[in-house]
């Protein structure tokens, strides 16, 4: 019935437009133009509006009881194919609603008139409809017909809603491309969460292992070696604190996950990353060659993460040392290299390069190569990523 209500403004407008045009172009042309403009073009245009689509989806779920999954809107844009499909749905809804609504209004008086026809003397008009039925017993045939027509209307309404329910998912639901995009986004988010979980597992596991081993050792030598026991307590304290800090950090990231659905950073955001790293007191020299815009989105966002993790690792393990970053986008490959001098005075502490595991994983998933390790007094990490799956 919403369709019937929706049709009213269009019909009314058609009437006005037709009447306004009648004088100028003749009756047939005036109504033709009015119907084309107000009953076809206008509903199509209405149906293309995003809010209308949302309302129609809600209405279809509520009134037709169909499951219509709402496509996630990418960057606030609704694709044209989706707009056309919603417009088609809107027109179908309005037309079906209009027809059934009109019949519901005109049928009851027509039925009453028809039933009175056998008993009348003159011609009987069917409600407010034009055709007339001659009065008298000769018109008795129309009575069963008239009594059946409301039943037929009910069936028509049921059939129409069934038909609408059938096409609703196709016209209002997400297109295959949108479904694919949604699934991909879910996959990326899941992979990200898995990675965070694994990082957490590694870093907290590492910290707790140190705590356990040092505490066991301190317990064993307490009576004989008090300086060792004292040092062990300090190390336990530091490790436990580091573990908690990592826990806090990753849980924060997981919590922010919902908020962080904002566009994932890509190489285009590299300048900002370098600037923010510099602001923490680390001297970063960055050299970029090639066209960053040509890098596919996935490669670009993963490369950004790799740089980010490498910078974090450098800061964590080497302290405030100068870091130099080289990024080169070639025709088939992206190469990035990050080097920092090894600080001999600092013991290298890391559980087999936890940050490195994350990088390794990203690189592997993109079928790239990574080498990392000390080289001529420097720590060097070099990553090569193919820009296309086949290259």
């Amino acid at each position: 019935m919403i369709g019937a209500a929706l049709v009213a403004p269009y019909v009314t407008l058609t009437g006005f437009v037709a009447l306004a045009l009648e004088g100028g172009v003749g009756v047939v042309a005036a109504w033709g133009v009015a119907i084309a403009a107000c009953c076809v073009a206008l509903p199509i245009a209405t149906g293309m509006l995003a809010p209308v689509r949302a309302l129609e989806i809600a209405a279809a779920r509520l009134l037709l009881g169909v499951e219509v999954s709402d496509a996630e809107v990418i960057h606030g844009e609704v694709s044209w194919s989706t707009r056309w499909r919603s417009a088609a749905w809107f027109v179908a809804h309005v037309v079906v609603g209009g027809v059934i609504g009109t019949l519901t209004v005109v049928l009851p008086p027509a039925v009453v008139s028809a039933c009175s026809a056998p008993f009348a003397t003159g011609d009987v008009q069917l409600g407010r409809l034009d055709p007339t039925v001659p009065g008298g017993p000769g018109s008795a045939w129309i009575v069963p017909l008239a009594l059946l027509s409301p039943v037929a209307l009910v069936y028509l309404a049921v059939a129409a809603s069934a038909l609408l329910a059938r096409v609703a998912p196709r016209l209002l639901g997400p297109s295959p491309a949108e479904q694919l995009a949604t699934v991909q986004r879910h996959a990326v988010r899941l992979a990200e969460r898995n990675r965070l979980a694994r990082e957490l597992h590694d870093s907290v596991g590492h910290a707790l292992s140190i705590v356990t081993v040092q505490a066991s050792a301190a317990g064993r030598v307490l009576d004989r070696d008090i300086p060792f026991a004292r040092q062990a307590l300090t190390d336990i304290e530091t490790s436990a604190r580091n573990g908690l800090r990592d826990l806090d950090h990753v849980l924060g990231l997981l919590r922010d996950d919902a908020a962080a659905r904002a566009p994932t950073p890509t190489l285009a955001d590299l300048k900002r990353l370098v600037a923010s790293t510099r602001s923490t007191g680390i001297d970063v020299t960055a050299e970029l060659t090639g066209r960053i815009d040509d890098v596919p989105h996935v490669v670009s966002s993963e490369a950004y993460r790799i740089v980010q993790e490498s910078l974090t690792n450098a800061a964590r393990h080497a302290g405030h040392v100068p870091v130099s970053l080289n990024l080169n986008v070639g025709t088939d490959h992206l190469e990035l290299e990050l080097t920092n001098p090894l600080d001999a005075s600092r013991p290298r502490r890391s559980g087999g390069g936890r940050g490195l595991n994350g990088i390794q994983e990203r690189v592997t998933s993109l079928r790239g190569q990574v080498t990392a390790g000390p080289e001529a007094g420097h720590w060097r990490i070099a990553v090569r990523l193919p820009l296309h799956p086949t290259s």
Partner: protein
Amino acid sequence: MNLGVLLVDDEPLIRSGLRAIIDAEPDLSVLGEADDGAAVTPMVRRLRPDVVLMDVRMPVVDGIEATRRLLANVDDPPRVLVLTTFENDDYVFEALRAGASGFLLKRAHPDEVVRAIRLLAAGDSLLFPAAIRELAARHAPAQAPAGGLDSAGLTDREAQILRLIAQGLSNAEIAAQLIVSAETVKTHVAHVLTKLDARDRTQAVIRAYHSGFITPRDPYTNGG
């Protein structure tokens, strides 16, 4: 007998803790420390330890590769005891397949640490048979190679003893169960190891699981 140990872990605090635990034992001593797998082979040649405690994940050469290199390049190599943070680490099984004789959780109780070193050096029984069975179950090939261990040509008695080894029984325990002398068991075990081309019990058991000779869900091995 004094047992020499080499510690290989990239985390200095794990090394210093383990060193304190091991050096506190009268019969054990740490001969040296390395922070990466690359240093293992030369250090073993120089220090001749009996057991190497080897971390699995290390930045340059990991514990798996280091174990492989050690066993390939050193005559009469020491036993390798793999150190791991997590029990369900896939690398651990890899390390066992590469020739490590056992593995140890870093969170293990100090008593367990020193027991594992002694057990491994003695080579007389399998370390953590239940854990090895679980690892084998997770890494069991989808289809066991055809023929299993047939080509090894084990006698019925040797096959029986291999199953008991997988349960973690020592020679003395096997002797008691089969009502034979410990010497006889020792001979059988030596034959099993030779026929399977295994350097120790762990390697023999890994091969037995991998070939499908023993399935990890085999009720006969549940004693582990």
